[in-house]
């Protein structure tokens, strides 16, 4: 019992301090590298301006996709997709609610962002569904986009097993995400 409590509090300390510790390490290295932080703040503001540019660039995409997701959901089709896949998702222990996200994630980054926003609003970001969705979103890339950009750049047509392996890894991520969230909840 005491051992279990110890491991729980260790986990809490670890996850509570992860971001500040990481930032301290990054900034510490920057301080040493730049002779006391020279030009660091101007670099920061440049990068932050870049971030704002990204937000402005994704805004039209998000308007379009969030509307499409909202219509798809209000029509009842989103629930139908989840219900249709329920035998499969039950079998591999995934909450059916995250399936639309899992299906869109390898195809479109901004589309899956729109679904994620919807899942957060409906189920909250801190429940089992919200956290599983977070892990799925954070642990994968837009596989189809990556494959087409990189192979396209060197003119490769015969991509062999790349897409199959990438999509299998995505499937493993979805199953793994649901498992890890459940496992951490048990302490």
């Amino acid at each position, binding site marked *: 019992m005491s051992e279990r409590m110890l491991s729980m509090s260790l986990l809490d300390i670890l996850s509570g301090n*992860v971001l500040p510790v990481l930032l301290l390490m990054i900034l510490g290295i920057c301080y040493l590298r730049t002779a006391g932080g020279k030009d660091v703040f101007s670099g920061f503001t440049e990068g*932050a301006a870049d971030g704002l540019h990204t937000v402005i660039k994704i805004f039209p995409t998000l308007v379009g996709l969030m*509307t499409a997701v909202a219509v798809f959901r209000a029509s009842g089709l989103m629930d139908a997709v989840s219900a249709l896949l329920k035998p499969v998702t039950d079998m591999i222990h995934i909450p059916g609610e995250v399936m639309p996200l899992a299906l869109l994630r390898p195809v479109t980054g901004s*589309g899956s962002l729109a679904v994620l926003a919807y899942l957060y609003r409906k189920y909250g970001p801190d429940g089992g569904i919200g956290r599983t969705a977070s892990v799925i*979103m954070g642990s994968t890339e837009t596989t189809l986009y990556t494959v087409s950009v990189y*192979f396209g*750049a060197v003119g490769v047509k015969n991509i062999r097993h790349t897409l*199959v392996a990438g999509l299998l890894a*995505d499937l493993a991520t979805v199953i793994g995400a649901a498992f890890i969230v459940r496992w951490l909840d048990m302490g």
Partner: protein
Amino acid sequence: MLDRIWIAMLIAGLAAGIAGGRGDRLAQELITSSREAVDLCISLAGTLCFWTGIMRIMERVGMARNISRLLHPLLRFLFPGVPKGHPAMGAIGMSLSANLLGLGNAATPLGIHAMKELSSLRADALLPDNTASDDMCMFIVMNTSGFTLIPTTILAMRSAANSADVSGILLPIWICSLFSLVFGVFMTKLLSRMPLWKLKSGSSGPHVRKDAVHESA
């Protein structure tokens, strides 16, 4: 692809909604969802800007190069077709490190550079022009698994949704993406040996070329 998904979702949604007698709800959603996109972008912006700022500093002080050096022994094992000291290895390392640090803007050009280096090795291995080498497949699968130290977008999205524990998600994300990376690497190695995908000229790499030339001579 996105074109098709977008229009299919809208047409199917509108048709099914109208047929199911949910026209009023559709009208409501059409109006509120575009406003929600504005709210989301505004609440995302702060967190996102802060972290892209930090990433820029990391880029400036050359942190990707350090990580790349740490990864080197592992990469030698994963990319057996790249000869020792070949620039392709440096390019692969830099690109994967940029991804690991979440330096999105830097990662894509670096990745394309790595692909070009790998492509030049492919010519040495007498592979047809349009066919991917084992190393190219491995590089891309590692890229698609998306292992990132600080998943900026997720942090921003969670704080926008008023999460009580924004960064509590980091640990499960690290565990899960490490698992999927290892799984992806394993599957890539395994599938490259399947009859359907196996390269006819044997494994890639400059050593093969010597044998092949020898045989034909």
